[in-house]
């Protein structure tokens, strides 16, 4: 016979207990009543007793043993109704607790369910479906809309919008085209891609994230260790109290009731449920937090140190302003794009990107392109000679800068690199390029202040002038310039001395030692950067600095939630204890309150999952 499910058992026992109650109230302890109660107790209590006996073989006393003793005791003294009620409550409590617990773990489970199981592979020109673990590096995968990508890969052909929420928490799909990297676990929302697998199975970024998240859930918070130590003494103490009570008062019922409440269930579960909900809630927002200890530390951060390049800035040069003299900005950019066709210089890339952003398309090629080392380029287009480069290029060729000098100087004052575009007789425009500040950087620093972070400090290897400009722009409290990676570590230590708990936020490139030194090391945009993912305590998977504020807010919410749970659990335990000793709490009432308190603690923790809806700030 198939073993009936937990749910079926709960229903059967509920019905039996219902009938028992009615019989008890109408015909009293009639043999029929006792019979129904005995059956109910046996069905609900059997598994409890079995677990208790198994545990006793290993000399472990647990709640099963205590409840078993209480129930057997109740049967001996003829309290059949109490026995039935206690086993029923324990069973239904356990059932409801595992159901609600699943909810606190749900956002993590849904993350794990994202692991793709199959992939369509093109082998020798034929498409075949393989299971994900049969994939090998270098295989060519074909992915259609709605499908999940089963490996980290490089796009060979096609273009598609890809939903990367599983990796970065970013809900808006991004366009992926040939030459770009895509991650395992992301979904194609529209379009079509042919890709080459670069990492498969356990070495994909997604698998690594999953692994880290799994480990994180059970990395115990200091508070949790304390509570576990506490409950190791609490339970035996209450058992002794039960014995003493019996010896003094000879009140069996009271002694048995004490046994039922001897396990501080709500207390021991208070911390792990809040932690798992917080980790799940963070993961849903693209934040990987490595465990309870990190959550507690993050909630107490006093100072934040930011690396500049790649953290406060985007980490790659981009066009910040265009000055065109006598032609449109688009026309100027078009000429520059054509001129820079063969260049792989970062400045050329920035110009090409800006052009693409403005929708400028050009297939024209420069004639007679000539590279002038350290200065720029010269080329011909439609019979006209053009120069693109720095001041030296124009001075060398005797082209007057007078007209544009004021603009050049004001751009240079802003610490931007100025690319000058001109013909052989005059300057026709300027393109100013800089490593742009992240759009949300200003808002993040402001929100940190609001959260009570005492100092926001910037570290950079740049010169004083550049550092000062950025620090001023972002309203940072302090900045340190011309720092080498080892200097950054020293600077972190200094902040720790002055402010106690310090978070370091970096992009994981060249700053792993600082990530490790800080109380909480936070890496931004680290999906795919293994060292950063390993070293950091918190990983902001997407490219959004705003997630930092979410991470701190969630950690504080979790710690608050934990405290509520602990105070509530202790409060209930005290009330129960006093209630039992004063004689107002019976066996079944004790069990009911105990189970209710555990449930309430779990339900309270699920509130953390609704973080996004409660968020009170927006960062642009």
């Amino acid at each position, binding site marked *: 016979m198939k073993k009936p499910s937990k749910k079926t058992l709960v229903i059967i026992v509920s019905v039996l207990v219902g009938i028992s109650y009615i019989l008890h109230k109408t015909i009293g302890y009639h043999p029929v009543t006792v019979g129904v109660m005995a059956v109910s107790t046996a069905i609900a209590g059997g*598994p409890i007793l*079995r*677990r208790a006996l*198994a*545990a006793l*073989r*290993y*000399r*472990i006393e*647990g*709640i*099963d043993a205590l409840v078993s003793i209480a129930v057997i005791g109740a049967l001996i003294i003829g309290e059949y109704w109490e026995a039935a009620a206690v086993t029923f409550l324990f069973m239904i409590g*356990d059932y409801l*607790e*595992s159901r609600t*617990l*699943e909810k606190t*773990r749900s956002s993590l489970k849904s993350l794990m369910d994202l692991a793709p199981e199959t992939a369509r592979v093109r082998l020798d020109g034929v498409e075949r479906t393989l299971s994900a673990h049969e994939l090998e590096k270098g295989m060519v995968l074909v992915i259609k809309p709605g499908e999940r990508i089963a490996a980290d890969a490089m796009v060979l052909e096609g273009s598609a919008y890809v939903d990367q929420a599983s990796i970065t928490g970013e809900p808006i799909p991004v366009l992926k085209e040939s030459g770009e990297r895509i991650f395992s676990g992301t979904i194609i929302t529209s379009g079509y891609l042919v890709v080459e697998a670069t990492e498969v199975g356990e070495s994909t970024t997604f698998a690594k994230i999953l692994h880290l998240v*799994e480990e994180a*859930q*059970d990395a115990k918070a200091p508070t949790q260790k304390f509570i*576990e130590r506490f*409950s190791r003494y609490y339970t035996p103490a209450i058992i002794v109290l039960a014995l003493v009570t019996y010896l003094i008062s000879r009140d069996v019922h009271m002694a048995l009731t004490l046994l039922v409440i001897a*396990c501080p*269930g709500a207390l*021991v*579960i208070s911390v*792990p449920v809040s*932690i*798992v909900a917080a980790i799940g809630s963070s993961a849903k927002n693209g934040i990987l937090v490595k465990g309870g200890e990190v959550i507690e530390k993050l909630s107490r951060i006093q100072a934040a140190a930011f690396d500049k390049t790649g953290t406060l800035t985007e980490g790659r040069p981009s066009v910040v302003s265009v000055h065109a003299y006598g032609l449109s900005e688009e026309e100027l950019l078009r000429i520059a794009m054509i001129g820079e066709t063969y260049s792989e210089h970062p400045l050329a890339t920035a110009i090409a990107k800006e052009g693409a952003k403005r929708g400028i398309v050009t297939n024209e090629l420069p004639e007679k392109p000539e590279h002038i080392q350290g200065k720029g380029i010269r080329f011909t287009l439609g019979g006209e000679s053009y120069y693109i480069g720095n001041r030296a290029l124009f001075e060398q060729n005797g082209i007057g800068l007078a007209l544009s000098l004021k603009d050049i100087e004001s751009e240079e004052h802003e610490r931007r690199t100025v690319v000058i575009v001109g013909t052989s007789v005059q300057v026709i425009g300027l393109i100013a390029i800089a490593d742009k500040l992240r759009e949300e950087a200003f808002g993040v620093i402001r929100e940190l202040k609001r959260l009570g972070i005492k100092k926001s400090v910037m570290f950079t290897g740049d010169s004083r002038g550049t550092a000062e400009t950025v620090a001023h722009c972002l309203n940072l409290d302090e900045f340190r310039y011309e720092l080498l990676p080892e200097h950054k570590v020293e600077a972190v230590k200094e902040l720790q001395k002055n402010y106690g708990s310090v978070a370091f936020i970096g992009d994981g490139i060249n700053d792993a030692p600082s990530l490790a030194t800080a109380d909480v090391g936070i890496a931004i945009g680290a999906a795919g950067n293994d060292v950063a993912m390993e070293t950091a305590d918190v990983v902001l998977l997407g490219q959004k600095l705003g997630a930092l504020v979410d991470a701190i807010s969630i950690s504080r919410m979790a710690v608050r939630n934990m405290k509520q749970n602990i105070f509530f659990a202790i409060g209930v335990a005290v009330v129960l204890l006093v209630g039992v000793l004063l004689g107002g709490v019976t066996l079944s009432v004790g069990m009911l309150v105990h189970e209710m308190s*555990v449930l309430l603690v779990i339900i309270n923790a699920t509130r953390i999952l609704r973080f996004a809806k409660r968020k009170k700030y927006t960062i642009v």
Partner: protein
Amino acid sequence: MKNIVIQLETLSCPTCAAKIEGALKKTAGVKNPSVLFNTSRVKLSYDEQVIGLEGVKGVISKLGYGSLSVRETP
């Protein structure tokens, strides 16, 4: 020695986790058991000469908890 991770049915109380861990610690042939409450998993290594995989699972099932799957780890 083999290292394994056993996925259990959902653990509903941290004391159950402590109980399983305690029992495995006292089982001959089982080394470094650790029961993870939130993920409902058991990590341990065992000596095949002393106790087989079925033996390990037996200890857990006698305590009243089912094993869903087993994965070997390096």
